[in-house]
């Protein structure tokens, strides 16, 4: 199970890559494996304001719909349109081409509440 060291993780299986006050958000390898074949993805609209824990996006597999939560609060500044056209990117490259949205982080203090790779690995028993 791939769990990159340079990311922070939410208990609800999202990852965030922090670069200054911008965060890139996606779902983990573990999450995509649990969801199985993802056939629909809808990243949030640019300008949408979210609080940590808010539903920010939706992905659906053949069998189930799954909400994607914002790991931190802020404003959506970019959405990955490529996953709308090809939702399977979430399965094949969850930490890369399958990213979902970018957020302008409102309060960097919230990042401290997220897990590092080791804590997330422990959570999923990997």
């Amino acid at each position, binding site marked *: 199970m791939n769990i990159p060291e340079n990311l922070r993780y939410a208990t609800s299986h999202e990852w965030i890559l922090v670069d200054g006050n911008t965060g890139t958000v996606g779902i983990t390898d573990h999450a995509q494996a649990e969801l*199985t*074949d993802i*056939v*629909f993805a809808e990243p949030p609209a640019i300008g949408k304001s979210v609080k940590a824990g808010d539903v920010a996006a939706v992905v659906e597999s053949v*069998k189930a719909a799954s909400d994607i939560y914002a790991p931190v609060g802020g404003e959506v500044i970019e959405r990955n349109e490529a996953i709308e056209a090809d939702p399977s990117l979430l399965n094949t490259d969850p930490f890369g081409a399958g990213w979902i949205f970018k957020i302008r982080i409102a309060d960097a203090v919230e990042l401290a509440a997220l897990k590092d790779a080791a804590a997330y690995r422990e959570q999923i028993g990997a």
Partner: protein
Amino acid sequence: MRTPLFDQHLATGGRMVEFAGWEMPVQYTGILQEHKAVREACGAFDISHMGEFFVSGTGATAWLDGLLTNNLTALPVGHAQYTILLNERGGVIDDLIAYRLGEENYLLIVNAAKIPEDAAWLRKHEVPGVHFEDRSAEFAALAIQGPQAASVFEKLFHRPMPAERNRVEEIQPGRSFIATTGYTGEAGFEWVMPAAEAAAAWQAALDAGATPCGLGARDTLRLEMCYPLNGSDLSPDRTPLEAGLGFFVDLKKPDFIGRDVLLAQKASILPHKLCALRVLDKAPPVRPHYKVYVNGEPVTETTSGALSPSLGYGIAMAYLPPAYCDIGQMVDIEVRYRRFRAQVVKKPFYKKP
């Protein structure tokens, strides 16, 4: 409950889910890949959860013809027939496959969830001379489906697969049966055998080139063909005529339970018909129990739905009032608080290229 193949499913990477009280694999490697394997090559499904009823004795044919909608008297020995068990209101108790093993000798393959109810119904209507036995626990079954199923058959049985659909053969009399039937729209066969032989049969099917397939692909494959799923598309409150299964109802038979209701329906207008809906917009997958609107008014809900793996668009079925059943009728399906355009289309959704 577990089928005799439970350990094999785990060893093959099956993701187990609850279905009708059974722990069944929903998928192994992935629903899309398994779906494609059946459409393009060959898949193997464990269908051991389904029920096996044996009916025999003088009068067996007449007895079953009084309980089932299709015509067994007209079915030659060595053939299988899709047929429906109705309640007195003409509603569907179960849909099943009857194998005619002899003049007065039948094997019925019934839905897993309905084994107790079907058995109780048949026992309630038992007549002297006809012997009915629910032997579901003794038997396992596999469905081998896909354009390469014939090659798998040859490797398993060292002879050609019967070319004709709905043929039944006893591999070992009274113990092991094959029928060229299925629930996918592909060529193939279903193989019923003693539970103790299931593990070897499963392995032999995989060794012969079949891809293990779970219930997820079974559902998308059958929905592309508009084959109904009892409990979703069929119910005790809907008749087979409403479900579009008139082809499997022989109203010329002198009598069967539910016939009067169907005759009356036929003489008037059906209250609803099960329609095939193609989603026109790019939309999340439609699932069962999503609301369907016509001209902005809620009229019904979907009974089944999926994003069709073969076709790449959303498909669903729903009971619509007859005024809205014409091909081309526009409807809206609500998915997560938003409505997407869909259209009534001809069944089935999928036709072999």
